[in-house]
């Protein structure tokens, strides 16, 4: 069998120096505006926090909680809303638009747990849901716990523990 003739002609037409190619590829890249992304993150993230503030005010005024005590139920309500929106497939659509604006609030944390649970549901409740729920959220908990431990140790050594 004769060796295949390299199809040089066709490639030659497109031949570019690496520099030219890079310029060409860059030209075809979808535009990524850091400023625009930050603006979207700011607006959506701020909006989510305002919703949280509404619930905080409700807990403070209707249930006579202090502002510090209202933090926990507020977070729980936000997580509940996030799980509902994730189940309906709405949260992922918001996330595509908002980037960090929907990922950084605690709703993004709940979203990562809920979507992992839903994604692995077909593998069963124990191995699928139970085993994968913390797949993405786990790093947040691990690093938060380790950091809190070391901050606590520093305060213990300095003798400045607790407020």
């Amino acid at each position, binding site marked *: 069998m004769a060796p295949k003739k390299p199809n040089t002609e066709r490639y030659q037409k497109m031949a570019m120096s690496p520099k030219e190619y890079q310029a060409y590829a860059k030209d075809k890249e979808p535009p990524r505006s850091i400023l625009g992304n930050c603006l979207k993150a700011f607006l959506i993230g701020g909006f989510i926090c*305002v919703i949280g503030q509404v619930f905080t005010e409700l807990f403070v005024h209707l249930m006579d909680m202090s502002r510090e005590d209202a933090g926990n139920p507020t*977070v729980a309500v936000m997580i509940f809303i996030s799980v509902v929106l994730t189940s309906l497939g709405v949260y992922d659509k918001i996330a595509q638009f908002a980037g*960090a604006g929907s990922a950084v609030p605690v709703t993004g944390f709940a979203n990562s747990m809920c979507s992992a649970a839903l994604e692995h549901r*077909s593998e069963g409740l124990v191995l699928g849901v139970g085993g994968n*729920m913390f797949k993405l959220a786990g790093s947040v908990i691990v690093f938060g716990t380790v950091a809190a431990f070391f901050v606590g140790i520093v305060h213990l050594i300095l003798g400045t523990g607790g407020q």
Partner: protein
Amino acid sequence: MIFLWAFLVGGAICVLGQLMFDVVKLTPAHTMATLVVIGAIVDGLDLYEPLIKFAGAGATVPITSFGNALVHGALTELNKSGWIGVISGIFKVTSAGISAAIIFSFLAALIIRPKG
């Protein structure tokens, strides 16, 4: 007024996360882990509580407050029951958030029909 500060501070923390995505090119998991550690350190310096007083949900809703709550539990318990509190207190304050996320996510997985 607190609503305005919640919007501005919460939005600013999200922009910080977006900059980590776009400029430092961290993965979302790395960004979240970094933000939690930042929250823990800021509370270690006693600065997160004033931020909550000032910005309300703008400080409690972003994931940085999770780091703050972990440290807060550890320090409160350290004060109350000595060195062992550093270990036993860590999850005292965050229990609501973690439990809510686990329970609601599990129930959602029970109710929602799997796609695959």
